[in-house]
C-alpha cells in the first residue's frame, strides 16, 4: 500500500538531484576571480621614432601616474623643503617598476600586419614628479624597424590585468610621429570591447586568461600608415 508513494517520491527526487547538480555545475563555472577593474590609471604619451629610411625603429613613451597611485607609492619617501619628493628615491622607485614590467614587454605591444614585433632594448629611462603625479619616460627599441608604407603598423599600451587603466593623454598631442615623412599619419582606435568578450575575460581566472586578460579588451590601439596604403 505504500508503493505508489514510493514511486512518486523517487521520481521527483532523481530529477530534483539532476536539477541541483546542474545548478551546482553552473555555480562552479562562476568567475573565480573578480575582474580587476582599474584601481589606478596612467596617462600615456607616445612619440613614434622614424629612422632616416622612414622606418619606425623605436617608441618613446611617457607615463603619468594618477595622484592616488603617486601618493600611495611615495609614502615614506624623503621630501625636500618644497615638499617635492627626493629625486633619487623617485628614480629608485621607477627603476624598480622598469625592472618589473620588463617581463611584461613594458606593457607595450607592437604589431606589423598582425605579427608581434620584439622589443630588443630600452634606453633613456627618466623619471620625475610633477603636479602630484609621478612621471616615467623610456624609449623602446624594436628588434626590426618597421616600414609603415608596406605593413599595417599598430601599437597598444595596456596592463593585461586591467588593474591600471592606460589611455593616451587627453587634449591631443598624445601621439607624435617624429621624423616621419609627410605622407605618414596615425589613427587612435578607442577601445570598443565586445561585451561578450568582456564577460568571457571576466569569467576566466588569472591563470586561465593566457596573459592577455581584460586589459587587452580595454586597450586603445594606434595604427600608423605611410604613403598610399589605406
Amino acid at each position, binding site marked *: 500500500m505504500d508503493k505508489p508513494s514510493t514511486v512518486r517520491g523517487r521520481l*521527483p527526487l532523481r530529477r530534483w538531484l539532476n536539477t541541483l547538480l546542474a545548478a551546482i555545475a553552473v555555480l562552479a563555472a562562476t*568567475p*573565480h576571480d573578480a575582474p580587476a577593474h582599474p584601481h589606478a590609471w596612467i596617462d600615456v604619451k607616445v612619440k613614434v621614432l622614424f629612422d632616416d629610411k622612414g622606418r619606425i625603429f623605436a617608441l618613446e613613451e611617457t607615463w603619468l601616474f594618477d595622484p*592616488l597611485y603617486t*601618493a600611495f607609492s611615495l609614502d615614506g619617501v624623503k621630501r625636500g623643503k618644497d615638499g617635492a619628493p627626493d629625486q633619487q628615491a623617485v628614480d629608485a622607485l621607477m627603476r624598480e617598476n622598469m625592472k618589473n614590467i620588463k617581463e611584461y614587454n613594458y606593457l607595450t605591444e607592437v604589431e606589423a600586419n598582425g605579427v608581434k614585433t620584439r622589443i630588443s632594448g630600452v634606453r633613456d629611462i627618466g623619471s620625475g614628479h610633477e603636479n602630484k603625479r609621478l612621471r616615467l619616460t623610456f624609449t623602446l627599441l624594436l628588434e626590426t624597424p618597421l616600414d609603415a608604407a608596406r605593413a599595417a603598423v599598430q601599437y597598444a599600451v595596456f596592463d593585461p590585468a586591467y588593474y591600471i587603466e592606460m589611455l593616451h593623454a587627453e587634449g591631443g598631442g598624445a601621439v607624435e610621429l617624429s621624423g616621419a615623412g609627410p605622407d605618414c599619419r596615425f589613427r587612435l582606435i578607442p577601445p570598443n570591447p565586445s*561585451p*561578450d568578450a568582456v564577460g*568571457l575575460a571576466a569569467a576566466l581566472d588569472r591563470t586561465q586568461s593566457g596573459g592577455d586578460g581584460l586589459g587587452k*579588451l580595454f586597450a586603445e590601439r594606434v595604427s600608423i600608415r605611410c604613403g598610399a596604403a589605406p
Partner: protein
Amino acid sequence: MRRSTVRHALLALLLFAIPALCLAQGSAEPPASPRPVVTAAEAQAGQPGFFARALAAVIGQQRQFHRKLAATLETIRTEGTAAAGWTLILTSFLYGVFHAAGPGHGKAVLTAYLATHRERLLRGILMAAAAAAVQGMVAILLVFGLTLLAGWAARDTQSAVRWAEQLSFALVAALGGYLVWRAAGGLRRLLTRMRAPAHAHAHDDCGHGHCGHDHFPAPGRVASARDLKAMAGVVLSVGIRPCSGAVLVLAVANLFEIPWAGIAAVCAMSLGTALAVATLALLVLSAKQLAATLIATDSPGVAVAGQLVALAGGAVILALGATLFAGSFGPAHPLGM
C-alpha cells in the same frame, strides 16, 4: 502524475538556474577558439548576452567611480568642504554597490552555500551584510594597524592584502571541507536509519537537527551550533579579504591627513556591498523556497537528497577555495598594485 512531476522538476531547474546564471554572467561556455583581437566590426556583430552587457557596464561604472573617488579625496584635502564629504560618501556607496554587482569569489561562496544548505531568509541576508561589514573592518584595521601603529609605508600594505587574500582562500577551502564532512556524516546517519527495520518511518526522528519531515530547502527552526559554525565560516572566509579599492582609499586618506574621510568612505562602501550581496542572497533563497513549495513531497528520500546537495555544495566551495589558493601564488602586479 508523471507529467506534473516533470513539470515541477523543470520549474525547479528554472528557479535554480536564475540565481546561478546571474553569477555565471552568461559566459559559462568558452568559445571554441580564442579570439586574439576584437575588432570594432566584431564588437558590433551579433547580439551580446544580457549579462555580458551588464558586466561590461558594471566594469565601466567601477572605473568611473574610482576616478571620482580620487578626485573627491583631493578636493576634501584642499578645500575640506562638507559637500565634498557627502560626495565622497555617496560615491563610495555606489562604488560598493557596483563592486558587489560584479563577479567575485565571495559571492560565489555565499551563493553556493545558500543554494545548497538550509538557511532562513533573514539569516542569509544577515550573512551577506556581516561579510560586507567584516570586509570593511578588516580594511580599516589593516591599514591603520600597519601604517599608523606599525609604521609601514602605504605601498607595503599591498603585500598584507595579498596575505589576507591567501588566508581567505585557505579558509574557503577549509569551510568547503567542513561542509563536505558534515554532510557526509548526516548522510551516513540517514542511510543507517533508513536501513534499520525498527525505524520504518525515519521522519519521526528529530534528534540530529534533521527531521524526516523537513524538505531540504525548508529553513531550520533554530540555528544549531553547527549551523552557526558554518555561517561564521562563510562570513569570515569571505570577509577577511579586504577590497583593494578600500585599502587604497584608506591609505591615501591617511596620507592626506583626513583619516575620517577614509573611514567614512569604507563604511559607505561596505553598506553598498552589503545591500547588493543581500539582494543576491534574497534572490537565491526565495528561488529555492519557491522550488521547495513546488516539490512538496514527503519522503525520507528528500532528506537524503538534501544531504547529497549539501555535500555537493561543500565540494564546490572546497574546489573553489583550493583553486583560488593555488592560483594566489602567482606574481604580484608589476607596478606594485
